[in-house]
């Protein structure tokens, strides 16, 4: 009897899973409808192109109805923090508005094995386009050959290809659409330059495990600044997953180094870390002496600036903007209207926030997971090649620049 009951439970679980999957795949405009009432950010360049477009009068809904359906797989998580949710919401809005479907998967960039398995699985699942954030250049030839064999387009987010031999090999493939990246090393260097102005000499860093490309590059910039300004990274804590780990680590830093000047959160996947570090510094009574810096704007940035705990941070206008832009390039390719015949390289710039007013302005625009970078109509009119003949790599770069400048206006 018990076995029958359990067998029934197992079948029920699989059915529920199946229905969930069907429900997930059946969603078309549900995600975008949720964002209708939310704030949208539009830029002057985008507005101009909209006015100039000869297809502006035709409703975009009719245009997208004729598009062939396509599927994009993005190797980034869609939940677990505000920035992930914000990115996935925008990417989903664009893709679903253009008649496509998007799936997300976290943990892909954690290792080379996971990246390759993700690409293989998504090709088998019928993806027409894949976005990855590779942990190393050496996986790219394998990814490229898999995508070429399957006729699947692909692009890179948050990374550039440093190895020139691999770069020329990848860029010669017609299935590679390009990459979007930011200069992580320079960002690390820039934050250290700001800290140097605040007369910081001894720093403790909280970072990811060595081998994580993002934080490795940022630390390169940090080390360069250390050599130049005579600063020193005295200690570190890596791979923290819980806020309590960040508190413990900071307490240990403060106890071991009474002359510590700054705790620098270089990169972390855990959420709530910044508040935990701030709390530890405050509890130790060292908030006047020990500064706090970070890369990527935390959810509680305004509170931290207001309380005087955070001194400087640097980040993208929005973390999800990089994958959003490369996804538009990929989506256009999948729809049969590529924006460029050769792979595009888009550069996002990070900028600094060092005061409460700027932090408030930024948070007002990008503090909610439901915020859209552009409203749906603007997305379709501007970032679909079929609606905007001027859409090309230069236009994309211009849009990025405008978006960055308007991010804190």
């Amino acid at each position: 009897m018990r076995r029958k009951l359990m067998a029934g439970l197992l079948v029920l679980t699989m059915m529920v899973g199946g229905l969930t999957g069907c429900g997930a795949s059946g969603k078309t405009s549900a995600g975008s409808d949720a964002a209708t009432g939310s704030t949208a950010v539009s830029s002057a360049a985008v507005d101009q192109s909209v006015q100039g477009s000869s297809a502006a009068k035709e409703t975009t809904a009719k245009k997208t109805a004729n598009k062939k359906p396509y599927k994009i797989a993005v190797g980034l998580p869609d939940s677990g923090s505000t920035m992930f949710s914000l990115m996935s919401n925008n990417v989903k809005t664009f893709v679903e508005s253009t008649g496509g479907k998007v799936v997300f998967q976290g943990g892909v960039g954690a290792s080379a094995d996971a990246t390759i398995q993700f690409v293989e699985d998504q090709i088998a699942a019928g993806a027409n386009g894949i976005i990855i954030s590779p942990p190393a250049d050496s996986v790219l030839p394998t990814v490229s050959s898999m995508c070429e064999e399957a006729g699947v387009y692909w692009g890179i987010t948050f990374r550039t290809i440093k190895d020139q031999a691999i770069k020329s090999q990848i860029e010669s493939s017609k299935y590679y659409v390009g990459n979007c990246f930011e200069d992580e090393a320079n960002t690390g260097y820039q934050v250290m330059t700001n800290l140097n102005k605040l007369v910081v000499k001894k720093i403790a860093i909280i970072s990811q495990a060595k081998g994580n490309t993002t934080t490795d590059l940022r630390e390169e910039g940090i080390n360069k600044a250390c050599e130049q300004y005579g600063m020193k990274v005295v200690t570190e804590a890596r791979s923290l997953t819980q806020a309590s780990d960040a508190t413990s680590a900071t307490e240990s830093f403060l106890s071991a180094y009474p002359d510590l000047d700054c705790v620098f959160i270089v990169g972390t996947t855990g959420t709530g870390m910044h508040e935990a570090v701030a709390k530890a510094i405050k509890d130790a009574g060292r908030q006047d002496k020990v500064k706090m810096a970070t890369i990527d704007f935390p959810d509680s940035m305004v509170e931290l600036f207001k309380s005087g705990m955070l001194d400087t941070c640097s980040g993208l206008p929005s973390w999800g903007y990089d994958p959003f832009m490369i996804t538009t390039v990929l989506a256009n390719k999948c729809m049969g209207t590529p924006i460029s015949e050769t792979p595009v390289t888009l550069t996002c710039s990070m900028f600094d926030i060092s005061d409460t007013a700027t932090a408030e302005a930024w948070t007002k625009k990008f503090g909610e997971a439901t915020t859209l970078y552009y409203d749906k109509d603007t997305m379709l009119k501007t970032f679909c090649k079929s609606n905007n003949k001027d859409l090309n790599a230069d236009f994309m770069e211009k849009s990025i620049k405008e978006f960055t400048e308007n991010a804190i206006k």
Partner: protein
Amino acid sequence: MIQRILKRLKQINIQTIFPLLGFVAVILFFQFMTDGRVFTVRNMKAVINESFFILLATIGFSFVMAEGNLDLSMGTIMGVSCVCSAIGANISPFLAIPFAIVPGLALGWFNGFVHVNLKMGSLIATMSTQSIFTGILILVLNGGSLTAPMSILKWNSLSLKLFTMVVIMLAGLYLYNYTYYGKACRAVGACSEAARQTGIPVGKIKKLSFILLGGICGLLGFFSLIRTGTASSSTGGELMMNVWCAALLGGLPLTGGYASKYRAAILGSFTMAVLANGMTLMGLGTYDKQLIKGAVFLITIAISFDRKNMVIIK
């Protein structure tokens, strides 16, 4: 004739065949839900690639588990072996294999030494060695990762993997069911004191199992290198949990002994791979995948667990 078949069917124990039935059911279910994507050539390749690492490691782990032991350091052994293989490959591509397997064997021996000679429980012994191996891995890499020469990537072929899988599966089957060593492993798991008194060198058998698992993890380090072209500190990060889940899902008992069946390692590995692959084909979100994995894990083991041969369930 029909009566004989019916009589035979009645004799079959549902618990024995449930893992196989479950595996077939999972495949059919995903085949139906994904409009037939499961049995495409591309997907089969993806499943084979996904199950390759889990299957081979689970085969090695089944010997350790048959003795009632556990190993937390599998993933880090694979990582260290991958790094050593990259170092060897940069000297000469033909050194990649020996440079992968030898460190794996050595680290496996160290696990065995700590467990047997220092008389530490396998869980805490391998927890300690995992910590040491992780530190060694990070020190050797000195931050970042090691790249293998591009020429080595062409060795990454499905036929080589299939060949290796078949060879190791058959070798494992022979070793597990038809040799003194395999029977000794299960005897040690059933009751190590009784095994000792019958003349089985318990310490040596245990060490040999850890060495065997280490060697297989070393080989997997090589295959990871030719697949990805890179060795980093995250190589093998998920191997341990996947292997544990595969072993338990297939029905290998934690306490080892004669209830440990070789087929459990194979069925569990393929079931894990098909389950993960199927959920990806269906486009399920991360949370849904994990929730279903947890529920299926519990219920499947609950149905297939061999309670008759286990007097005490811990």
